[in-house]
């Protein structure tokens, strides 16, 4: 038999304890993740503003064009993201925002849609409606457009969420499409 040496076992145990303490200390320096879930139609507070996701639906190219005055710009967007081809779809999410300012509007542009909370799925923000937002707070509706790629998944099998914050509070809205 291989002789068991207490000396090595003690050194190993001390090393493991030191590593554990250090890992615990590093983890303690960062706030714990917290998850808050909202539902479509529910009002919630975001950056001292009341926000409600009013509706979310897939839209056609024509519907997107109707939101823009400059059609060539829309054509460019469509070409860039290949919305017409394959299994790419355009998701429009309308949000009602109280006391919207230009700064908050810019932050809203970072909101992202994901397919499901865990596991697979990602999508990218494509564009937001060109809305004249001034620094004067106003109650406004904002529609965000997202490009959803269903190349390798079935849209009926996944849940859609709109992520509004990520860390340390992960906050998202479950969408009813």
């Amino acid at each position, binding site marked *: 038999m291989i002789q068991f040496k207490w000396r090595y076992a003690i050194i190993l145990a001390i090393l493991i304890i030191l590593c554990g303490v250090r890992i615990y200390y*590093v983890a303690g320096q960062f706030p714990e993740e917290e998850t808050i879930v909202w539902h479509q139609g529910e009002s919630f507070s975001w950056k001292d503003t009341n926000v409600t996701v009013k509706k979310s639906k897939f839209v056609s190219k024509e519907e997107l064009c109707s939101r823009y005055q400059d059609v060539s710009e829309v054509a460019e967007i469509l070409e860039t993201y290949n919305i017409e081809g394959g299994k790419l779809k355009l998701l429009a999410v309308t949000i009602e925002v109280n006391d919207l300012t230009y700064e908050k509007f810019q932050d809203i542009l970072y909101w*992202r849609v994901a397919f*499901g909370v865990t596991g697979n*799925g990602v999508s*990218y923000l494509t564009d937001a409606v060109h809305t004249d937002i001034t620094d004067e707070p106003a109650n406004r509706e904002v529609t965000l457009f997202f490009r959803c790629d269903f190349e390798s998944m079935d849209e009926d099998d996944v849940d859609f969420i709109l992520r509004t914050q990520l*860390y340390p509070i992960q906050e998202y809205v479950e969408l009813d499409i």
Partner: protein
Amino acid sequence: MSIRRFFIIEIRRVLRSPALYIALLLGILLAVSQIVQYVFHFADINKLELYMDIDFMFPHSVLTSMMGFASGEWQSYALVEIAPLLAVIPFANSYYLDIKNGYVKNLYTRASKKSYLVSKYIVTFLSGAAAVAIPLLVNFLVCMMVVPYIQPITGTALFGIPFQTFWADLFYTNGILYVLGFCGIYAIFGGLYACLSLVAAFLVNNRFLVQLFPLIVIMAGSMILDISKNSLYAPRMLLQMGQGFSISGIRILLIIGALFIITLTYFWRGAKNDTI
């Protein structure tokens, strides 16, 4: 003597061999160099606490910083490239040397060939597995001591693992298991690389060539796969924890199976080999 008795003797030999510690030291140096070059820098960025002020910003965590995940780092690629060399350093040429210096003659007079061959295969496999996987585990552990472990969130485009890739579900539900699972894959490859040297003992008559044999096999195999436009089957493409390339479980199983079958010829040749 039984397989168990042989196994203990062989394990004792490998643990007392300086070559094992040289191989581990080389691998760990590579792992630590990644920490020094990248992870300390990420820890400094974390201290700025930008993630508290900027939306959709995540602190640098273990699964964005360690070997295989940090952008621009070269150490994970280096580890994969030198894995066939690291794996053979500890014990892989011991079978060849045992034959050459007549040690096996002493053993075969006392016990069956089978016991010796099986225990040699297992211990060689374990030594190769340790030489390749332990540096990765050390990197993971030290990384956790510098930056926090934070469970990645899908749908953010902040993490390197895209959707619909190998073990993506595991990555986004339990990142630690994902890393340990990949360490297991590295260990299997390392073990099989080391066992390729056992086969080489019957093919070449030079101890250095025996040790270089796995590297030659892997390089030649990768070259053939590249030429035949099947480069995704090459081990260097499969041993990518950050999944910079498309990985599939079937491809990993196929290559492991192929390497395993090659190493099994050692038993066939070993049983036929009339040492006495």
